[in-house]
């Protein structure tokens, strides 16, 4: 019985891990070869190191230099459709968001305090 429980636990773990990994490999974005864009979010500002990127992968390295928890979004031209998002960027923490946007116009937004429309700016690809 005890051995049975352990086997079941092991099989479950492996299955869970496999499922998660499968999800990863099929949909992940490599940061290698990506255009890396530095973003600094404070309580009242959002500095994006460049406002244009060539086509292909883009990695936004978002650093929270403020005192509130922040989020970073890449919206479509309508300012609503979420292309990419990274939440839970605590003060002093950096997190990276990768995306492969098509050529076009986008909107970046930092959301210090995790609320509201955020501090927005235009961003173009291609």
């Amino acid at each position, binding site marked *: 019985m*005890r051995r*049975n*429980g*352990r086997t*079941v*636990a092991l099989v*479950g*773990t492996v299955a*869970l*891990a496999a499922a*998660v*990994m499968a*999800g*990863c*490999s*099929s*949909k*992940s*974005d*490599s*940061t*290698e070869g990506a255009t890396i864009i530095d973003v600094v979010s404070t309580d009242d500002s959002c500095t994006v190191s460049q406002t244009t990127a060539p086509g292909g992968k883009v*990695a936004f390295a978002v650093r929270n230099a403020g*005192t*509130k*928890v922040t989020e970073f979004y890449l919206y479509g031209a309508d300012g*609503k*459709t*979420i*292309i*990419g*998002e*990274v*939440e*839970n*960027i*605590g*003060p*002093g*923490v*950096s*997190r*990276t*968001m*990768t*995306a*492969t946007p098509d050529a076009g116009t986008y909107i970046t937004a930092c959301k210090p*305090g*995790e*609320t*509201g429309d955020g501090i927005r700016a235009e961003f173009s690809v291609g």
Partner: protein
Amino acid sequence: MFANFLIGLREGLEAALVVGILVAYLRRTDRQHLLRSLWAGVAAAVGVSLLFGAILTYGPRGLSFKAQETIGGVLSLLAVGVVTWMVFWMAKTARFMKAELEDRMDAAVAVGTFSVFLLAALAVGREGLETALFLWAAAQATGSSTSPLLGAVIGLALAVAIGWALTQTAVRFSLATFFRRSGVLLVIIAAGVLSYGIHDLQEAGILPGLNSIAFDLSSTIRPGTWLATLLKGTFNFSPVTTTLEVFAWLSYIVPTMVLFLRCSKLPSNTSRTVNRQAANA
């Protein structure tokens, strides 16, 4: 450090409450032997989340936003399923206990080691990846400051302590009170998890209506405060909630709660019949 502490608390609270109730349940129904499967489930979820989070943080590959939201959304829906199953499994046990049929209970509400394992693994693993990514990001910041990681870990530790305190409190209630209160709490938690899962899938673009907002209370319940943290951590209450989330929340909680309250209550005539049968047996 305080803001990171609140994130840790928020991410860990709901899982700690579900696990806390499950531990209390297994103890009160003399099923200590299943605690091993429970902790195996918790350990598996923590292990897989931390490993996967580390690969994504330190490895060359990141996870696309859509994939992460989809994983979070699907795991949340699965968690709602198993927590609901747990609620009715507990209600069934409560019926047997009230009918003084403890000796027959074991066969009727027998539960496999795998069910307990899966329940614990999903309760913890549902938000495990996001929590792990947050922890690894905080760990990476340690070069310049240890306070983010310290805050996050203290927040998670407080969540675990609250779960433990719940277990200790639950042991003191009468069995009937314990079953009823923990069942009601679990139904409310599961409704929140459903709403959260729907939101993840809306963000991923799999479900529509992300910008159809039912209410926005963010000026009253401001994110980053104790109140918002506890409401989000326990009931997955989001100050900005979409119409579809409200619809899903209500569609789940109303029938489930009614059914639970009915199931956990034994009608008096049935009670007598069952007792007589038990006496004859």
